[in-house]
Structures are given as structure tokens and as C-alpha cells.
């Protein structure tokens, strides 16, 4: 059995070594992230059967928790780590041809490797200060990557993202300080052991501070003002990673703090309404967009609202549905951004109206874009249908009249999604373009990752049972705090 610490240590070592490789030859730098994430993917998949039997606790430096740091590789951790490795692997293959700049592109690849290492670290750690450090690694590398192209839009979006993100992380650190002052320990299991409910103000205030701090990155309303600018000004491969991985990992951190650490019961109702508000505002704002990437960014906000709604139902079915929606959103949104990247590059503009008739110019890319859109809307036989159906069934199964009304709001959101995505598909296929129609398709290196995403979308959509075992195990991990505490502290 491989030690899961290698999931974090090896990509970090390769990231430190890239400048040394760059001194030897500039050509092999592009292949290093591909190798690193292939390695991560193989290790994560090979650890899945062991983790489903019993979660792995990795003690770092050999000290017993709570006196040392520990990693907790449970079903949730291995699910996120596999998703991150898979997305990182495919997007780094896409970036072999997409990223080019005069000079060398080694800074892009270093930042890319470290971003995904930070995300893996957030998903696997069991200590709140370690969570803060890896969360900062994730945030700082995304500030630098949003500004990578150096144009007007990129720098402006990056500075706004930076200011909001650093206020958020300062609030997170303040919450961690208040928790340390009361309990004297930084280990998540140890703190969870000493908290029974979060109703006293001494515990409520740190919880709100930490959720606000993490919520800036998780794009919960009203903290998501940075998202449309940042995701639309970044290079397309980075937009795919930000929309597909970074905000989901932020959401995972929020859920871990709320459910495992604080056992919040009535605060979850408030979070549920926040999720619905996020969903509505995201979808309605996406409806009036003319810029393709901004529309996709607002659609990400809507989907995060849906995931938050599903998880705050706090039932076993609800949390599994929420995690399934995470998987389907990552696959679908990454595919959409990758396809949009080359479409924008070939037409030279981000407006939806300039995509007229591109169905004839780039037929394969347009087909893959359509598959991604249909999956996000939630049509069969794609994975978006299976996951949305599961969310709606989970909400109806709680029996309350209130939840049945809320399902109506979700369906309204789906209808709005359908409208704006079909507008783009109509523009691609059924409108004529003004210029000459010559086929200039995406290069093969860019098509391979999109194909694999589309294949996964169709395959998991038809057989959702292939991941239902890990989803159920992950949902039990979130609900059984005492098992979590017992497996770490013994």
C-alpha cells in the first residue's frame, strides 16, 4: 500500500524541480505536470478499495494526533483526490498546446502544479491550521494564474479577487485563533470531541467567521462578487480548473467545518436558503450575458448553490446527491471551458454572437460543447441528469411541504439554464456565419482530454452505480462524527 502522503509530496517536489529542469531544456517542462498527475491518479485509484474498507490515518513526523499533524484519507478525501488528479491530468494534456507565450512557460506550469497540490492538501488534511495553509496555497496560486495573461481584464479581476480573498482568509485565521484559545488544540478530531452543539456564542462566532472566510472561495452568495470577472479573464485551462476544482474544494472545507467540527443543526437551515439564493441569482445573471465565459462563470455559481442546497438537507441521501452533483459539475464545466477555449481562440472574440455557424468550422468541438451543455442542464443520458434527479428525489424524500416547494425553485433554475445554453447551441448550429467556412479544427492534443471528459459524462450517466458505493461511504463519513473522532484519536 502506498503512503498517501506521496499524493502531496511528489507533485510538490516536481514543482520545486521545474526551474532546474528548465535550465537543461525548455521543452520537457510541459510534460512534467502530466507525469505528476498521472502518478497521482494511479495512486488515488489504487487506494480506493483499501479506503472503502477502513479509512487511512497518516501520522506525519511520527507523532500521535493531537500532538502532531495527521492526514485523514477517508472516502470523501479519496473521492476529491481522484477528481483533482483526473481533472489535472486532462487539463495539463490540453495545456500542452494551448499555453504559449514568448519566453518560457515554466511559471504557468509551476503555478498549476502547486494549485492542484494545495487543493489535494485541503481535501486530505485533518488539522485546521494545516487546512488554512493549504487553502492559502490554493488561493495565492489562483490569484497569480488569473493575472497570467497580463491584459487589462486579467489584472483588474485579479486585484479584486485578491482583496476579497485575503479579507476572507484573515477572517478564517481569526476564527482559528478563537478556537485555539478556547480548546488548546488544533486537531479537527480533538475539537470535534469537545463540542456537542454550536449554540453558545463562544462557538457560534468562530463558526460564522470561518464559514465566511472559506465561503469567499466557495462562491456562496453574497461573497461571490469576484467570480464572474476572475473566471472569464483567466486563460481557459485555468478557468476549467477554477470552476471545476477550486470552488468545489472551498465548498468541501465549508461542509467539513459545519458538519464534522461544529455539528451545526439550525445553522444548516440558513445555509440551505443561502444555497437557493445563490442558485437563483447565478442562473438569472447568466441569462442576460453576452460574453460566453462570463455566462459559464455565472452558471458555476448556480450549480454551487444547488450543491449547497443538496448537502444542507443533512440526510444520507441528500449528501450523496450533493457529492454526485459535485462530480457531474466538475466533468461538465471543465469540458465546457476547454471547448470554449479553442472556440474563442479561433474566432478571436468572447461574444456569443460571434459564435454563429461555428458548427461547420469546428464540428467535433461543437459537438463536445453541446454534450457538456446538455449535461449541465440535466438531460438524459448524461451524468447531469442522474445527479439532478438524485438531488430532487433527496429533497422530496424529506417529506416536508417546504422542501417540495423548494424543488419548484430548482426546476425553475433548470428551465433558465436550458434557455441560455440552448441560445448558445442555436447560435453554433443554426445560424450562418459571415466569413468563409473552412474547417479549422482544434488540434488533436486539445481534443483528447475533451473526448475523455465526454466519455466519462456519458458512461457515468448510463451506469451511475459505478460510483454509488464511494458516494454512500462519503456521505456516511460526513454524518458520523463520532466514527471520525474514534478512528483518529483511537
Amino acid at each position, binding site marked *: 500500500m502506498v*503512503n498517501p*502522503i506521496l499524493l502531496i*509530496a511528489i507533485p*510538490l*517536489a516536481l*514543482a*520545486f*524541480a*521545474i*526551474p*532546474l529542469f528548465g*535550465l537543461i531544456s525548455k521543452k520537457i517542462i510541459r510534460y512534467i505536470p502530466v507525469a505528476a498527475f498521472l502518478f497521482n491518479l494511479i495512486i488515488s485509484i489504487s487506494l480506493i478499495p483499501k479506503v472503502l474498507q477502513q479509512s487511512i490515518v*497518516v*501520522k*506525519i*513526523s*511520527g*507523532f500521535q494526533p*493531537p*500532538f*502532531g*499533524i495527521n492526514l485523514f484519507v477517508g472516502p470523501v478525501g479519496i473521492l476529491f483526490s481522484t477528481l483533482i488528479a483526473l481533472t489535472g491530468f486532462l487539463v495539463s494534456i490540453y495545456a500542452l498546446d494551448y499555453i504559449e507565450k514568448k*519566453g518560457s512557460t515554466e*511559471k*504557468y506550469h*509551476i*503555478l498549476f502544479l*502547486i494549485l492542484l*497540490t*494545495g487543493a489535494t*492538501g485541503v481535501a486530505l488534511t485533518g488539522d485546521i*491550521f*494545516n487546512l488554512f*495553509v*493549504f487553502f*492559502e*496555497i490554493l488561493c*495565492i*496560486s489562483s*490569484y*497569480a494564474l488569473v*493575472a*497570467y495573461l*497580463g491584459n487589462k481584464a486579467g*489584472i483588474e479581476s485579479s486585484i479584486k479577487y485578491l482583496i476579497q480573498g485575503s479579507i476572507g482568509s484573515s477572517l478564517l485565521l*481569526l476564527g482559528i485563533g*478563537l478556537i485555539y*484559545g*478556547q*480548546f*488548546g*488544540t*488544533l486537531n479537527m478530531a*480533538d475539537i470535534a470531541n469537545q463540542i456537542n452543539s454550536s449554540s453558545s*456564542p*463562544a462557538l*457560534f*462566532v*468562530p463558526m*460564522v467567521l470561518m464559514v465566511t472566510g472559506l465561503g469567499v472561495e466557495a462562491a456562496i452568495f453574497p461573497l461571490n462578487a469576484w467570480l464572474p470577472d476572475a473566471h472569464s479573464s483567466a486563460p481557459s485551462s485555468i478557468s476549467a480548473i477554477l470552476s471545476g476544482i477550486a470552488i468545489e474544494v472551498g465548498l468541501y472545507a465549508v461542509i467539513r467545518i459545519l458538519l464534522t467540527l461544529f455539528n451545526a443543526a439550525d445553522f444548516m437551515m440558513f445555509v440551505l436558503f443561502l444555497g437557493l439564493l445563490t442558485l437563483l441569482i447565478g442562473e438569472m445573471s447568466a441569462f442576460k450575458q453576452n460574453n460566453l465565459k462570463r455566462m459559464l462563470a455565472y452558471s458555476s455559481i448556480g450549480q454551487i448553490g444547488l450543491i449547497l442546497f443538496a448537502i444542507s438537507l443533512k440526510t444520507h441521501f441528500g449528501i450523496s446527491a450533493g457529492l454526485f452533483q459535485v462530480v457531474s459539475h466538475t466533468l461538465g464545466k471543465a469540458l465546457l471551458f476547454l471547448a470554449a477555449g479553442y472556440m474563442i481562440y479561433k474566432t478571436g472574440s468572447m461574444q456569443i454572437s460571434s459564435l454563429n455557424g461555428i458548427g461547420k468550422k469546428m464540428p467535433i468541438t461543437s459537438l463536445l460543447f453541446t454534450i457538456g451543455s446538455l449535461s449541465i442542464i440535466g438531460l438524459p443520458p448524461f451524468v447531469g441528469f442522474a445527479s439532478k434527479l438524485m438531488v430532487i428525489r433527496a429533497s422530496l424524500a424529506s417529506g416536508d411541504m417546504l422542501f417540495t416547494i423548494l424543488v419548484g425553485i430548482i426546476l425553475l433554475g433548470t428551465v433558465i439554464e436550458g434557455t441560455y445554453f440552448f441560445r448558445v447551441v442555436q447560435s453554433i448550429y443554426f445560424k450562418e456565419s459571415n466569413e468563409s467556412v473552412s474547417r479549422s479544427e482544434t488540434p488533436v492534443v486539445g481534443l483528447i482530454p475533451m473526448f475523455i471528459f465526454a466519455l466519462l459524462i456519458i458512461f457515468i450517466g448510463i451506469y451511475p452505480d459505478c460510483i454509488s458505493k464511494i458516494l454512500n461511504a462519503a456521505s456516511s463519513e460526513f454524518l458520523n462524527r463520532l466514527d471520525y473522532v474514534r478512528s483518529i484519536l483511537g
Partner: protein
Amino acid sequence: MRVILSILVLIVICLGIVSSLHRIPFGNPETKIGKYCINKGREETGAANIVTSVVVNYRGFDTLGEVTILFLAAIGLGSILTSMSKWSQRKTEPASLILKTGCRFLLPLILLFGAYIFIHGHLSPGGGFQGGAIIASAFLLIYLTFHGKGMNETGSKVTESSSGLIFILLGLIGLAVGNHYFLSNFLPKGQLNDLFSAGIIPLIYIAIGLKVGSELAKVIYNLMEKS
């Protein structure tokens, strides 16, 4: 309008924090981990400076993350600032005689002081980050005094990357031999208060000191040259 809203939000935050402060009395902390580290620190890690043993050994993973964040800052800065106007092409006054003489006299002393601080991190207050910052201030003095003195880009790149690699390699060696834990202290711990004691702690701090020094020097150089 915005001012009034911000003041209201701040009053709410202030009240919230004050109401939760009564559980944290000042001067009488609740320290489970702290007491354990002070009591067992000397035998488990061999360092006389307990803060060092906490930073490098008990919470060594956080230190790895922190080293990565500094690396990120240097790389991010380098990728954003890419202008072509060199410092030497700008009209600046040459430095005065006092500055030049003072720089020539103080430079080796500052470098020596910085190296002393990060080598003796486990015996006296100090450590890798503090020593690295002092070394970077020596480079700042050079840039201020001798205009147009470029930085050896290759040298600083090699120092930075290899120091980071040494840190992770020490952790991976601890995984392979010794205790089979990442970042475990596998070298002999030696006598307390000796220079060669505390296992891998001085090695890690030397690597961190060199890395932080070259990184901050690179950040200062980029900000002066390319803005």
C-alpha cells in the same frame, strides 16, 4: 452610504468577537499541545529551542506549506512583472560616499549575522525565516548602493530550487528509512545545546534560510528593476 454600511458591519463583528472572548482569559491559556511540547520536546526532538522543534518537527508540514507559499510569491511576482526598462537606463543619482563605504563595510557582517541566526536556530531564538530575511536585507543594501548591479539569475534559481528539493528529500528519506513516517527525525539527536544536535532540524533550517534569502532577494530585485 458605503461608509455607514461598513461601520455597521464592523460594529456587529466587534460585538460578536467580544462576546466570545470571555472564554479566553488573558494570561492563563488553555494549552494541551503546548504543555506536551514543552515537557517532551527535549527528548523527542533534541532541540533546546522549543519553538524550533514545534515549527520544524511537530508542525513540520505547515512549514513545508509556508516554504511553498514564499516560492509561489516569488514565481507569481516574476510572471506578473515583465517589463523591459532596466534600472541602469533610468536617471538616478549615484549613491553618496557614506553609503558606498558603509555598504562595503557592513555587507559581510550582515551576511555573517544572518547565517549565524539560521544555523543556530535550534539553540537560540531565530531560525530559517528570520535568518533568510536578514540575508535578503544585505542584498537590498547592494541594490540601493550600486545601481545597475544585476543579480545572477541562474545562481538564485538553482539555490532556491535545490533548497526546496532538499527539504522534501529529507522528508522522503525519513519515509524510506528510520521510522517510516514523512519528516521523522531520523538522524541521531546528540547532546542538548550542541551545534550538531537535534537530528535533521539544523539541516532543514539551513535549507530554509538559503531559500528564503534568495527568494526575498529575487522579489526585491524584480520590484526594483521591472516597475
